[in-house]
């Protein structure tokens, strides 16, 4: 890991610097393309795949079964509709309840028959019905209301903390980018949107902004400390901050993603389905996209939003002039040779 240390050192000292802010047009282009795909993709696929709580779904109840073994049901259903992700639970003392996606009538009949055979009961003892979809209406409405309230409040908090609404705006844009892309990935791949996935989306809100705040705090520090005498233009100060927090961004992403990924792996491969898989998938995508967007969308956008302010223009002109002087190597000493603690005077 010494090399990673070295990497961090070089980023900190500016020896190694990725020109992230300067290449903003490239990032914007990438973002635009991604967002376009995220919007068009799901439309081409025919919309999102919604879970049983939104769409309603089929439910089978096997009563007076000999055994309440849940594997029997999953095997039986897997034979008829392999794609189905059955939710199986026991009801009462001798019944098994199976929930699946909405099945066609033929499938329903076949599943009923298969369940009856598997549990050794008469076909009449398997009832099939479907579930109403009030979750979608009830709770999504509330989630959307929560989302809007949060965005407004978070915007105000950030604008107050950073003392500029432009940071808040840049963070919000990055956040929307994250949400659209995460939702797009769900739409394109056809992952089911369940209540758990919605919870995951909502968490991304918090996480994405959280990540942006950490980097913006460094940007604020750098740009305010660098002051008018700095040799760096405003955009360069922003870029340096992004580079200096890059190690943090990488470390944090890894640390945050590791537990989520382990839930996803366990959820997907051991359990097969359910809350854990849905939450962790949304989170995994959202965290990766969130970290990306802070660096490649929020920071460049912020620099761009501010670069036309008169004060910033003045300052940039000054630092460019200083730089020109430096590269010309003028020997008349307008700059006092400095050790770390002395002032740089113009």
């Amino acid at each position, binding site marked *: 890991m010494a090399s990673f240390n070295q990497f961090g050192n070089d980023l900190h000292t*500016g020896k190694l610097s990725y020109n992230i802010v300067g290449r903003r047009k490239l990032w914007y282009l990438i973002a635009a393309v991604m967002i376009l795909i995220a919007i068009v993709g799901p439309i081409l696929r025919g919309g999102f795949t919604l879970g049983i709580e939104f769409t309603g779904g089929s439910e089978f109840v096997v009563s007076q079964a000999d055994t309440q073994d849940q594997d029997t049901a999953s095997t039986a259903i897997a034979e008829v509709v392999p794609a189905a992700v059955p939710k199986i639970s026991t009801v*009462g003392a001798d019944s098994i309840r199976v929930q699946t996606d909405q099945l066609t009538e033929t499938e329903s009949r076949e599943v009923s028959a298969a369940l009856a055979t598997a549990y050794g009961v008469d076909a009449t003892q398997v009832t099939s*019905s479907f579930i109403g979809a009030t979750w979608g209406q009830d709770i999504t409405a*509330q989630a959307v209301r929560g989302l809007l309230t949060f965005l407004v409040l978070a915007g105000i908090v950030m604008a107050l903390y950073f003392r500029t609404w432009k940071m808040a705006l840049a963070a919000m844009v990055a956040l929307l980018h994250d949400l659209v892309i995460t939702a797009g990935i769900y739409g394109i791949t056809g992952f089911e949107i369940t209540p758990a996935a919605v*919870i995951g989306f909502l968490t991304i809100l918090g996480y994405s902004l959280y990540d942006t705040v950490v980097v913006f705090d460094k940007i604020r520090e750098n740009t305010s400390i660098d002051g008018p005498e700095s040799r760096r233009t405003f955009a360069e100060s922003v870029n340096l901050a992004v580079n200096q927090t890059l190690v943090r961004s990488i470390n944090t992403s890894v640390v*945050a993603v590791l537990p989520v990924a382990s839930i996803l792996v366990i959820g997907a491969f051991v359990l097969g389905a359910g809350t*854990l898989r849905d939450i962790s998938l949304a989170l995994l995508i959202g965290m990766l996209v969130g970290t990306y967007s802070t660096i490649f969308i929020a920071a460049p956008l912020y620099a761009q939003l501010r670069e036309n302010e008169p004060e910033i223009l003045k300052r940039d002109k000054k630092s460019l002039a200083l730089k020109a002087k430096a590269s010309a190597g003028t020997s008349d000493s307008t700059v006092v040779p400095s050790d*770390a603690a002395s002032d740089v005077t113009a």
Partner: protein
Amino acid sequence: MAKSSPTKKAWRSLSWLGVIIVGLIALNGVGVATGGGSWTPKLALDLEGGTQIILAPKLESGQTVSSEQLNQAVSIIRQRIDSAGVSESEINTQGGQNIVVSIPGTPDDATLNRIESSAKLEFRPVLMADVPSADSVGSDGSTETPAPESTDGATDPAADPAAEATEAPITTPTAAPTDAGDLNNITPELQELFNSFQCADIDTTNVAPADQPLVTCEVDGSVKYILGPVEVSGENISDASNGQVQTQSGATTGEWAVNIVFDGTGSKAFADVTTRLSGLTGVQNQFAIVLDGSVISAPRTLAVITDGKPQITGSFDQDTSKALADQLKFGALPISFTVQSQDTISATLGSSQLQSGLIAGLIGLILVVLYSLAQYRLLGLVTIASLTVAGVVTYFLITLLSWREGYRLSLAGVAGLIVAIGITADSFIVYFERVRDELRDGRGLVSAVESGWRRAIRTILASDAVNFLAAAVLFVLAVGNVRGFALTLGLTTLVDLLVVVLFTHPVLQLLARTKFFGDGHKLSGLDPRALGAVYRGRAQFQGPAPVPGKKGTSASREAAKRQTIAERKAAELIGSGSKSSTDGKDS
């Protein structure tokens, strides 16, 4: 040097943390000892299993339920269950007409009653009242004129309805009834039914239609009534609360009352009823509040209420007035339901979900530990210790919440906790990276810890504030599962702050003074050489600079210091002209 002061502070912080943890454990111990608490958090339906109740609508023949009515009923039942302090309940419609209520654990009787008495609430005028036994002797109710004793047009429940039950007037209706309170509503058949009616006969599944009279009893079976057609429906109640009666001067009398607020339609209808009833005497002066076919209260009308805000007074205490207010507020379902089935179910993939969740969390935690050790060497141990402390505090907070507030840990909550590992660890990463930055700038470890901390804590506070805001908004606005998740997220954000302030920072302060870390041992993760600290010549790194007291005292000094080393080199280059251009190769 003021070396002892930060050390002392560090120890004080650690002691506070110790006090908090011991306090939490002790509090929990009290909970266990007094019987209400437990050493483990209660689990929600998806982890523990629970009770599932299927409600079917009571329909008169030919009547159908619209999905709108059903959705309204779902939200009302949800409100009721939530107000009973049960969280993580799931309420769904099923098959277009049933409502499925899933409650974690085994609900107590009160909660079950609340759901099952998901009643249709209506206001009907009393036409006739009697004690249930057939051979009762009624007294003439008209002799007892109620005294208007209350202040703001209140109504008064009949003190002893049996005492003023009227002799059944043996009249045969001579004309069609003109209004709901018209005694012409009483047909001979109805009279017959009433005379032989026993309170045990009440069939709550067969409530008379709204435009027909109803024969029923007080809930406790003490009085039987003939009631007129519905005058005001429960849907028209916009609010109901209980409180103490206030005199005109604003002083409370200590008497409990139930305050009802009607909506526009209800106010108008209620004004009409009270106008008519206040002119009548005896039981006909009373109106009955009917919940699911039984009379829950039959107050007398003392005044005409035109503002739609009646107050019911009488022999209430705080609990009974609250109960009636709740019944009025939450009883206003558009349709009545009957419990079709009630099953105790095992969890959906149940205990195996919890187990897998815990295993996933453990694996995630181990990976985080390995990564921290690789990245931060022994400093990673501080991360691990901090996470452990955070875990302990969170565990006991959740156990306490589960005891005091009835919180139940759901799978979504577990996911929230696992996600929190990442967000909590980030605080340490932000902090450590700041300290490393300071070391790179050539500070000694002790001062690097102090100045790194001051920068890091700002960032941690700001970012935690955003995270907490997200959790708080979700908690206030969302329902069910989302709420449980928001709670763990918000809780862990606070715990994160607590731990980083009271544990991580003090520990680092103390460690900075040890030889191992202070000298920057290779394995300490804080080796200035590995971090490319600015070389000061003669094997000396920049000594521990006095920590600047206030920010802004040396902004321009900081500015110079914050130049990148490459820039500093450039500056030196300019200063010394181009003659030393050869030394651009180091660091």
